[in-house]
C-alpha cells in the first residue's frame, strides 16, 4: 500500500498541471452541486417553521363591509376551522411619503398576537394610538420608510397623518417586490381612514392540518353558499403565499441542480480523458511497475489515486464553499420570513456529497485505469506507448484538399486522433457553450417578459389618483396636456369564477389597451365587452379554452365572459383576467379606474410632463415615471446563471486544455520530428491551436441546439411555475449572427487556451526527445 501511495504521490508531483485541472474542475462542480442541494434541502423548512411559529392562516377571506360581523364570527364553524382571527375591518389606504404615493390594504387590529396570523414585530412596537401605523418590514425596506417617519393619508378628504411605529413580518403575504402589502392600525382608527364604499372585513382561518387546494376551494364554496350573494370580495390561501415565497429559490435550485449535473458530467469526462491519457502514455512505466512487483490492483490504484487525491482536496474545499455560498440566499429567505438567520446546513448532506463525489470520481478514474491493470508487462515494456489509431486521417486529407497550411492540416488530424478523448472533450465544451447560450438567452427572455409586464416602451407615465379626485377630472387634466398621446385607465376587481376557490384578480382596461403589448400567446386581445384573456394557469384550473364562455360573478352580479386569448402574466401565479372596462355591469360600485398609464408623444420631456401634471393636484395625484426595472428575484436568477456560465466555461476550457496537454505530451516525439524537418515554433503553436480550434468548433456547433433546447426548457419551467405557457417570442432571443458567433467564440477561447500547451510543444527540445528514444 505504501508503495502505491508513494508512486501515486510521485506521479502527482510530476503531473502538477493535470492535478490542478482535476482540482479546479472538481472544486467548481462540487461547490455548485453543494449549493444546489443545500438550497433544495433547506429552503422548504424555514417557511414551514415560520408558518407554524406565526400560526399562519391557511385561508384569508375578505368580505363586503355590509356583511354582518356576527355572521362572520360564526363562519369558522361552517368550514370546520380550528382557529380564526377577525373579523378585522379593512380599507384601502393611499398615503404619501417622500414625495411618492403608496397603496396598502390597512386592517384594524388591536394586537399583533392571536390564534391565527400572529404578526412578528421585528422593529418598533404595535400601534398604541389611532395616529400610529404598522407596516410590513418588506414594504418598509423596499420603499425606505423608517420607524418614526410620518406619512400623510391622501385617500380621505381629512388627509390625516400617521406615525410609523412598527415593522412586522406577516407570514400570510408575499414580499413587497412580488405582492401588494398590508398595514395595520388600531380598530378604532379605521373609520377615520375609510373611504366610503372601500371598506371590507378580513377573516383568517386555520385548520387542524394543512388543507389541500381542493379542500380550500370547498371551504370557500361553503362560505359563499352560507352567506348572502356577493359577500366574498377576495380570498387567498397559504399555498399561493408559499409558492410566492419559494418561487425564486425553486427556480434558482432548479437551474443550479441542472447545471451542477452538467458540471459533474464535464468533470467526469475530463477525469476519464485524463486517466486514459496517462495510461496510454505510460505503457512502458506500467510494464516496469508490474515487472518490479505491482499487482494489477496496485497499478490501478496508482492511476486512480492520482485523480482521487486532488479530487478529495477539491471536495474538502468545494463542499464547505458551496454551503457557504448558499447562505446568502438562505439568509434572504429567513429574513423575508422574519426568522432569525441561523447558518443552515446539513452535515449529513455534506458527508453524503463527499462520499458521492468521491465515488463518482473514483469510478471515472478507475474504469480507464483498468486498462493499465490488465496490461501484460512484456507487451507494455515492448511497445512503450499505446498504438495510435489512424483516426483523423480522413479529416486531415479533407483539410489538405482545401490547401490549408500544413500545420493546420496536421492539427486538424490530431484533434480526432483519439476518438474517445475527442468525444469526452466535446462533452465538456458542449456543456460549457450550452450553458453560455442559456446564460445569455434566459436573461433576455426575462427582459422581454419584464418589458411586457411593465409596459416598457409602451407607456412612460403612471398616475394614481386619490379617491377624493374624480376619474373624469383626471382624464380632463391628462387630455389637456399636449404631450399625451394615449391614456389607458386601469381598474381592479375580484371576480368569482367557477372552479377557482379565490376570487380572481381582474385587470380592467379603459382605452386602447391593445397597444400595451402584453404577450398574447394564443388567440387575440379583447375587442369588446365580455371578452377576456387569461394566463394558462387560469385556463388549466378552470378547464377552459379559447372560445369557451363562462359565468363569473362580481359583487353578486353574474358576468357572461368569453375567453378570446391566452396572455402571459406572472401575477397570482396565472390566476388573472384581462378585460375591457365595458365588460363591467353598469353601476358597479367603486369601479372608476384609479390608475392611468400614459403614453407620451415622441420627443416629449418626461420630467416636465410629470411635474406639470403632478402640479395640477399635488395632494391628490401621484405621478411618476413607469418603473420598468427588473424585480429582485429575476436579478438574482440572472446573477446565478452568469456564475454558472463562468463555472461551466472554466470547466470546458479545462477540458480543452487537458486534452491538448495530453495530446502534446503524447505526441512529443512527432513534434520533435516535425521540428527536426523544419517546422518552426510558430507553426507548432498553430498546429496545436488548430487542433483545439476544430474541437471547439465542432463542440460549439453541437452545443447550439443543446443550448437552445435548454433555454427553451428552462423558459418552460419558469413559465409553468408562474402559471403560464411560454410566449414563442421569448424563445427567439438570439440573432442569426449570434448563433454563428457563439461557436466561433468557443473557437477563440479554445485557441487562447491552447497557447500554453502550444508554447510548451513549440519549446520541445528535439535532441532530448529524439535521443530519449
Amino acid at each position, binding site marked *: 500500500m505504501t508503495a502505491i501511495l508513494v508512486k501515486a504521490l510521485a506521479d502527482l508531483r510530476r503531473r502538477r498541471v493535470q492535478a490542478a485541472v482535476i482540482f479546479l474542475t472538481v472544486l467548481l462542480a462540487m461547490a455548485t452541486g453543494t449549493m444546489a442541494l443545500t438550497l433544495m434541502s433547506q429552503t422548504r423548512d424555514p417557511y414551514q417553521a415560520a408558518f407554524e411559529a406565526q400560526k399562519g392562516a391557511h385561508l384569508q377571506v375578505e368580505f363586503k363591509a355590509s356583511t354582518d360581523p356576527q355572521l362572520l364570527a360564526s363562519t369558522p364553524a361552517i368550514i370546520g376551522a380550528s382557529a380564526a382571527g377577525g373579523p378585522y375591518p379593512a380599507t384601502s389606504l393611499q398615503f404619501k411619503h417622500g414625495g411618492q404615493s403608496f397603496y396598502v390594504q390597512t386592517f384594524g387590529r388591536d394586537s399583533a398576537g392571536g390564534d391565527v396570523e400572529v404578526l412578528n414585530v421585528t422593529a418598533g412596537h404595535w400601534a398604541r394610538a389611532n395616529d400610529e401605523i404598522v407596516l410590513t418590514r418588506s414594504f418598509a425596506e423596499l420603499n425606505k420608510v423608517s420607524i418614526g417617519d410620518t406619512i400623510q393619508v391622501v385617500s380621505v378628504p381629512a388627509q390625516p397623518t400617521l406615525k410609523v411605529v412598527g415593522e412586522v413580518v406577516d407570514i400570510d403575504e408575499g414580499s413587497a417586490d412580488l405582492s401588494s402589502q398590508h398595514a395595520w392600525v388600531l380598530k378604532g382608527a379605521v373609520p377615520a381612514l375609510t373611504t366610503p364604499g372601500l371598506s371590507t372585513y378580513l377573516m383568517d382561518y386555520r385548520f387542524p392540518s394543512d388543507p389541500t387546494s381542493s379542500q380550500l376551494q370547498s371551504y370557500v364554496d361553503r362560505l359563499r353558499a352560507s352567506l348572502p350573494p356577493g359577500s366574498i370580495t377576495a380570498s387567498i390561501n397559504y399555498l399561493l403565499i408559499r409558492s410566492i415565497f419559494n418561487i425564486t429559490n425553486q427556480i434558482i435550485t432548479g437551474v443550479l441542480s441542472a447545471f451542477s449535473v452538467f458540471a459533474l458530467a464535464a468533470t467526469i469526462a475530463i477525469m476519464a480523458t485524463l486517466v486514459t491519457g496517462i495510461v496510454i502514455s505510460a505503457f512502458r512505466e506500467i510494464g516496469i511497475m508490474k515487472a518490479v512487483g505491482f499487482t494489477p490492483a496496485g497499478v490501478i490504484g496508482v492511476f486512480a489515486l492520482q485523480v482521487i487525491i486532488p479530487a478529495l482536496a477539491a471536495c474538502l474545499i468545494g463542499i464547505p464553499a458551496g454551503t457557504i455560498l448558499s447562505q446568502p440566499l438562505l439568509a434572504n429567505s429567513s429574513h423575508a420570513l422574519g426568522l432569525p438567520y441561523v447558518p443552515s446546513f446539513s452535515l449529513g448532506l455534506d458527508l453524503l456529497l463527499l462520499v458521492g463525489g468521491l465515488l463518482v470520481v473514483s469510478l471515472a478514474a478507475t474504469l480507464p485505469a483498468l486498462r493499465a491493470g490488465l496490461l501484460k508487462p512484456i507487451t507494455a515494456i515492448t511497445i512503450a506507448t499505446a*498504438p*495510435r*489509431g*489512424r483516426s*483523423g*486521417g480522413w479529416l*486531415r486529407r479533407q483539410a*489538405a484538399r482545401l*490547401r490549408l*497550411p*500544413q*500545420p493546420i*492540416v496536421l492539427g486538424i*488530424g*490530431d484533434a480526432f*486522433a483519439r476518438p474517445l478523448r475527442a468525444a469526452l472533450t466535446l462533452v465538456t465544451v458542449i456543456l460549457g457553450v450550452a450553458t453560455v447560450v442559456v446564460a445569455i438567452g434566459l436573461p433576455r427572455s426575462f427582459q422581454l417578459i419584464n418589458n411586457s409586464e411593465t409596459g416598457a416602451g409602451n407607456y412612460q407615465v403612471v398616475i394614481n389618483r386619490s379617491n377624493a379626485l374624480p376619474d373624469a377630472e383626471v382624464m380632463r387634466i391628462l387630455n389637456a396636456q399636449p404631450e399625451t398621446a394615449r391614456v389607458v385607465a386601469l381598474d381592479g376587481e375580484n371576480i368569482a369564477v367557477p372552479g377557482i376557490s379565490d376570487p380572481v384578480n381582474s385587470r380592467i382596461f379603459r382605452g386602447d389597451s391593445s397597444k400595451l403589448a402584453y404577450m398574447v400567446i394564443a388567440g387575440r386581445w379583447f375587442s369588446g365587452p365580455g371578452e377576456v384573456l387569461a394566463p394558462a394557469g387560469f385556463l388549466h384550473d378552470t378547464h377552459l379554452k379559447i372560445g369557451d364562455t363562462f359565468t363569473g360573478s362580481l359583487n353578486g352580479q353574474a358576468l357572461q365572459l368569453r375567453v378570446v386569448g391566452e396572455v402571459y402574466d406572472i401575477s397570482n401565479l396565472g390566476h388573472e383576467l384581462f378585460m375591457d372596462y365595458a365588460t363591467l355591469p353598469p353601476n358597479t360600485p367603486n369601479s372608476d379606474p384609479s390608475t392611468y398609464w400614459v403614453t407620451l408623444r415622441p420627443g416629449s420631456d418626461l420630467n416636465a410632463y410629470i411635474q406639470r401634471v403632478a402640479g395640477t393636484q399635488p395632494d391628490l395625484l401621484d405621478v411618476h415615471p413607469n418603473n420598468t426595472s427588473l424585480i429582485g428575484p429575476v436579478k438574482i436568477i440572472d446573477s446565478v446563471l452568469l456564475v454558472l456560465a463562468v463555472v461551466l466555461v472554466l470547466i470546458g476550457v479545462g477540458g480543452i486544455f487537458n486534452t491538448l496537454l495530453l495530446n502534446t505530451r503524447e505526441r512529443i*516525439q*512527432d513534434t*520533435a*520530428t*516535425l*521540428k*527536426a*524537418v*523544419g*517546422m*518552426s*515554433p*510558430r*507553426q507548432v503553436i498553430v498546429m496545436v491551436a488548430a487542433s483545439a480550434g476544430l474541437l471547439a468548433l465542432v463542440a460549439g456547433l453541437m452545443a447550439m441546439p443543446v443550448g437552445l433546447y435548454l433555454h427553451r426548457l428552462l423558459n418552460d419551467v419558469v413559465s409553468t411555475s408562474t402559471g403560464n405557457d411560454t410566449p414563442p417570442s421569448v424563445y427567439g432571443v438570439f440573432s442569426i449572427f449570434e448563433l454563428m458567433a457563439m461557436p466561433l467564440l468557443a473557437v477563440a477561447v479554445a485557441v487562447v487556451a491552447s497557447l500554453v500547451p502550444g508554447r510548451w510543444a513549440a519549446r520541445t527540445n*528535439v*535532441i532530448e526527445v*529524439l*535521443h530519449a*528514444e
Partner: protein
Amino acid sequence: MSELVRLTDITKVYQGGVTGALNGVSLAIEEGEFTAIMGPSGSGKSTLLNLVAGLDRPSSGSVTVAGSDLGRLSETGLARFRRDRIGFVFQFFHLLPNLTALENVLIPAQLRSRVSAASAGRALMSRLGIGEVADRYPSRLSGGQQQRVAVARALINQPKLLLADEPTGALDTKSGDQVMALFAELHQEGQTIVLVTHDPKLATRCAARVISMLDGRVIDDARLETTERKPADVIRVRSEEPSR
C-alpha cells in the same frame, strides 16, 4: 568544389556537464563530399551532427552551413534552415505514425507551402524503390522501407546537405546495405552527405572522407582512396583508440 560546412573552434558543454561533449572542434566539408563521422558512443559525433543540422547551438565557436551562420539565426530561422537546406535521417526513422508514407515524405515540402509536391514525392519514392508503399502507414512497412521513406522525406526539398545519424542502426544487415547503397547512389548524383556511425566498415564503405572522433575531439580526418590514406588505415586508427 566550394565549402558547404565550416565549424570553427566549436565547444559544447551540456548543463551539468563537467567535460565538454565537443572540445574545440574545427573542420570544413566541401560540397559534394560524402563524409563519415566515426567514433564510439559519447565521442561527440551526434552532437556535431546536431550542431550542423541547427538542432542545437554550440557553447562557443561558430557553425556556418551553406553560407548561413547558424549562431545568428533565430529559432524560426533555424527551422527554415532545416526545412530548406538540410535533410535529416534518424536511426529510428521517426516517421509520424498516423500519416501514410507519402504524407510523411511530403511534410517538409508542405511546411514550405509546396502544395503541389505530391507528384514529386511519388516520383522520389519510386526512385528509392518504395513507390508501391506510398499509401501505407509506417506500421505496415519493414524497417528498411521505413528508413527509405525517411530518406525520401529528407530529400523532398532537395537539401544542400543530407545528414544521417546511424541510419542503419535499427536495421538488419540486408536492409542496412540497401540504405547504404542508396546513399552511395545519391552521392554519385552529387548530394553532399554527412553520415554518423560507430561502425568503421560502414564508414569506409561509401564515404570518401572519414572523420574520427574521441572525447569530443577530432582525432583523425582521412580522405580515402587518395595518396594520403586507405580504408584500412582508418580501421587501424579505430583499433588504436585508447580504451575508455
